[in-house]
């Protein structure tokens, strides 16, 4: 009781909760779920973009894309590490992911169909992720907040690169412009869904806000994203596929239509265009890698037992020949 009050006072004072601090069990569980889901999203998110690495149409774009997907693996690592400070382990979280017992962001259950999708994911999907994540840099749990600071910095870099790719494509051939518009048409609504269901349907928001895990409601963040994106779309020369979208001078915000929430719930429940494919891919990679992880562990045990140092090949090479 006393602990709980002190915890809430710390949070209210905008101070960080650290791993060794007492925390309510529900807070811990909420964080584990949220951080794990976030980590899983980074890892599953490697697939839709990774789909274009081998086919990227210029070497510069290939390098940018490969570096970006690599960053996503890195983000997954930070986030799993943050989750581990809460007493869970990565192997266990990974098992829950591949068995479908923990979620990842639904956005990655849509297919990437052209190279323009790479740009649009950078612009809209990373853009939406940043709106979601910037407030998390000040979230109450210290390790999570620190991970988010690093991640956000890299994400805005990715977003700029995505936007720059689209700008370049819009200056290209008519086919390229059509490709960009097509990708925008397919990704716009799923991007809006990334902020979660409308506030009246969002069950955990209030408590998460009290705990300063969350700082804005889903609808607030969605509005912010739309307001931010509309001028970017204009500058780019694409049309956002929402006939209800218009500036509302009274509100000082854009009005906009609602995504298909039935589709949203179906995809969340596992019934999206790529859920099965994404999970099967992750499961296969995990299973195919099992023997390698076992070998590394076995070798580490042997080395620990014999006190042998790790291999170092420096010897004759430099001097020789």
């Amino acid at each position, binding site marked *: 009781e006393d602990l709980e009050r002190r915890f809430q006072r710390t949070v209210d004072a905008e101070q960080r909760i650290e791993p060794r601090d007492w925390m309510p069990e529900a807070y811990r569980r909420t964080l584990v779920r949220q951080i794990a889901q976030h980590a899983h999203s980074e890892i599953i998110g*490697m697939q839709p973009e990774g789909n274009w690495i081998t086919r990227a149409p210029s*070497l510069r774009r290939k390098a940018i894309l490969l570096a970006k997907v690599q960053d996503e693996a*890195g983000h997954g690592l930070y986030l799993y590490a943050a989750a581990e400070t809460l007493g869970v382990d990565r192997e266990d979280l990974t098992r829950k992911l591949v068995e479908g017992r923990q979620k990842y962001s639904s956005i990655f259950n849509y297919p990437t169909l052209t190279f323009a999708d790479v740009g649009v994911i950078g612009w809209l999907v990373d853009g939406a992720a940043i709106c979601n994540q910037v407030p998390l840099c000040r979230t109450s749990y210290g390790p999570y907040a620190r991970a988010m600071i690093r991640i956000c910095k890299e994400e805005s870099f990715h977003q700029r690169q995505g936007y720059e790719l689209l700008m370049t494509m819009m200056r290209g051939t008519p*086919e390229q412009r059509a490709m960009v518009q097509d990708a925008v048409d397919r990704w716009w609504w799923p991007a809006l869904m990334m902020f979660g269901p409308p506030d009246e349907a969002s069950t955990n928001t209030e408590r998460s806000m009290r705990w300063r895990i969350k700082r804005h409601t889903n609808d607030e963040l969605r509005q912010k994203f739309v307001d931010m994106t509309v001028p970017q779309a204009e500058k780019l020369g694409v049309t956002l596929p929402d006939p209800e979208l218009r500036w509302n001078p009274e509100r000082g915000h854009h009005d906009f239509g609602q995504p298909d929430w039935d589709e949203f719930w179906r995809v969340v429940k596992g019934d999206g265009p790529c859920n099965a494919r994404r999970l099967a891919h992750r499961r296969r990679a995990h299973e195919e*890698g*099992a023997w390698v992880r076992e*070998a590394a562990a076995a070798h580490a045990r042997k080395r620990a037992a014999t006190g042998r140092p790790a291999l170092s090949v420096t010897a004759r090479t430099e001097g*020789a020949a």
Partner: protein
Amino acid sequence: RADLAAYCVMLGDDALVFAQRLSEWCSNAPELEEDVALANIALDLLGQARMSLTRAGEVDPAVRPAAAPVHVPDEDALAYFRDERAFRNVRMVEQERGDFAETIARLLLFSCWRLALFERLTTSGDPVLAAIAAKGLKELAYHRDHAARWTVRLGDGTEFSRERMRAGLDRVWPFLAELFTAHPVEARLAEAGVAVDPGSLRPVVDDVLDQVLAAAGLDRPEVAPLPAVAGLAGRHGVHTEPMGYLLAEMQHVARSHPQAVW
């Protein structure tokens, strides 16, 4: 100058094609750390490829394939608008990626060799090549170290991993001899102090490989080198059958939209 450009294409193609294969691992590696590491290595090689191909275009604009639209930079003209027969990489790097042990085996052989080569190229008579080599040294040392450590882990891990590592080495070893076979261009440029005669790298590479294999408790495979086709191999543009599929995947978007800008 045609020789120097051809040599830059050889070095560039080795790196480009291997980077392409390594990037296939992305989201498929046995653990996240390895996704990061293999992507890093692929990125390093891709960077080396871009510098070498750009240098080739600078030195001799005639290396640009006729099929490349004028607005495409040299590096992309060479990567995306050449046909298979014009690629000059050794055949080792174009093979299907295989399992993790095979990839590690390939990376071990390739990076031992390329590091030895780049050490010598730092004193190349072509200052740009020398600079590319100097920049690549640290990268390649990391690649070699990474491959060597995994070779030891897998060779001295479980029974199963040992078998896989042995099988991976068996599959890659036939491609080793080609790395030491000089193409006439290499021979001429080595004479002129611009390139390295790859044959001279054999002792250094053998020595490092022996060290790594010894640490891993593995024997040097006893397999015959993969023959050339009437004396012609990768450096002459005579590749193996996986190469065509690699290029189809790599070039398809660029070839489908030749007038596009990316």
